[in-house]
């Protein structure tokens, strides 16, 4: 009982401390405020109801990231069938080839990555997590994460130095 209470307290502290990070991550998937808030809310709900399954309280942040990422991807998967086309796509399709805005390529490079790659890029370079933590979150081993990270960067045509990757 005591262990459970302290784990729950840890979770509450963790969420309170990092709620902005969690919101940003959710936003990076769904790209709009309302859905991102929904995802944060739902993730907290899920986390609270299964907090007693956390064995190692030190990994609670990774554990919550895991729930958040899954909730976000789940949400997108379900929404896919009815996704509204954005203005840029409509314009692009209706007028044929147009001049690109200067950043479009870059955003697309990240947004069009499969989720398993995109997640790793975000967690590693934007959330500054360690490869081991990312492995914990995605449920893969560290080597797979490393391989995917290389592959994702290659897909985005980004060159990095050795220090960036370690």
């Amino acid at each position, binding site marked *: 009982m005591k262990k459970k209470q302290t784990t729950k307290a840890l979770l*509450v502290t963790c*969420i*309170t401390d990092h*709620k*902005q990070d969690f*919101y*940003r991550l959710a*936003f*990076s998937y769904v790209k709009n*405020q*309302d859905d991102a*808030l*929904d995802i*944060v*809310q*739902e993730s*907290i*709900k*899920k986390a*609270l*109801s*299964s*907090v007693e399954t956390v064995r190692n309280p030190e990994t609670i942040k990774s554990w919550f990231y*895991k*729930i958040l990422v*899954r*909730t976000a991807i*789940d*949400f997108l998967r*379900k929404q896919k*069938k*009815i996704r509204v086309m954005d203005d840029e796509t409509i314009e692009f399709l209706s007028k044929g080839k147009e001049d690109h805005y200067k*950043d479009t390529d*870059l*955003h697309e490079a*990240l947004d069009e990555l499969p989720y398993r790659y995109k997640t790793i890029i*975000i967690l590693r*370079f*934007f959330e500054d997590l360690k490869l081991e933590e990312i492995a914990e979150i995605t449920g893969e081993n560290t080597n797979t994460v490393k391989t995917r990270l290389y592959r994702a960067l290659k897909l*985005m045509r*980004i*060159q*990095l130095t050795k220090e*960036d990757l370690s």
Partner: protein
Amino acid sequence: MDKRLQQLREEYKNVQIPKELDIIVEKALQQEPKKKRIVMWPTSAAIAAAILFTALVNINPDAAQAMSKIPVIGKIVKAITFIEIKEEKDQSSIDVKTPALSGLSNKELENSINEKYLKESQQLYKEFIQSTSKNKKGHLSIYSDYETVTDTPDLLSIRRNIETTQASSYTQSRYITIDKKNDILLTLKSLFKDERYIKVISQNIKEQMKQQMKEDPNKIYWLTDEDAEPFKTILPDQTFYITEDHKLVISFDEYEVAPGYMGVTEFTIPTGVISNLLVGERYIR
């Protein structure tokens, strides 16, 4: 770091944090996990709560209240509106109708159910007050009403809906089912001979979920291991009611087994599936 990656990182970090985030997080954290549902309150605590609740409503002049007691003729077991609370403040509002049972011969049962309802309303009012206290400008809307879903000479099922809206809404449905002839509050467990019903009903619900998802791709239930919290089994005291034609219906709160947009979900269990586990045919057939 690569310039382009750096640029993406900056944009990522510059995403505006909406001011609602604090409220939503705080609210979500306050919510107790749904799994721990208390069925009965100790009588003394419930009475204390009821007194406190009445006092709250009376002391607060803003609380527009309507108390309606309908005289009961003969022995008619039914639900009446005991207290209605309506209040609006800043961006928040509350509209809660508290049901109360009348006409049961078993007064102890009647009181304990009514006290439970009062306690729930009192809790909702407390949430409303917290949300509108001076230093917090909450956007909270609480709505609760009730409905008699089944009323036969033998049975009475009452549903209480509680809808809490704060950016997104959360709906709960609570049911009670009473044997009017014998003055008994039915529990799911009491309908069956032994614990096997949990497995049998859960299995049937899973099949129904799969079937529904196959037929309509817009329907989603959390079933697979990919989902963070897949549906495994019903609770021994899962919410349920009995329809007028004696069918068992199992109900889940919003978010309990499916994403929010699915709302409160219900499954009618074919009587054939559970017939050999039932204690008798009095309620379900």
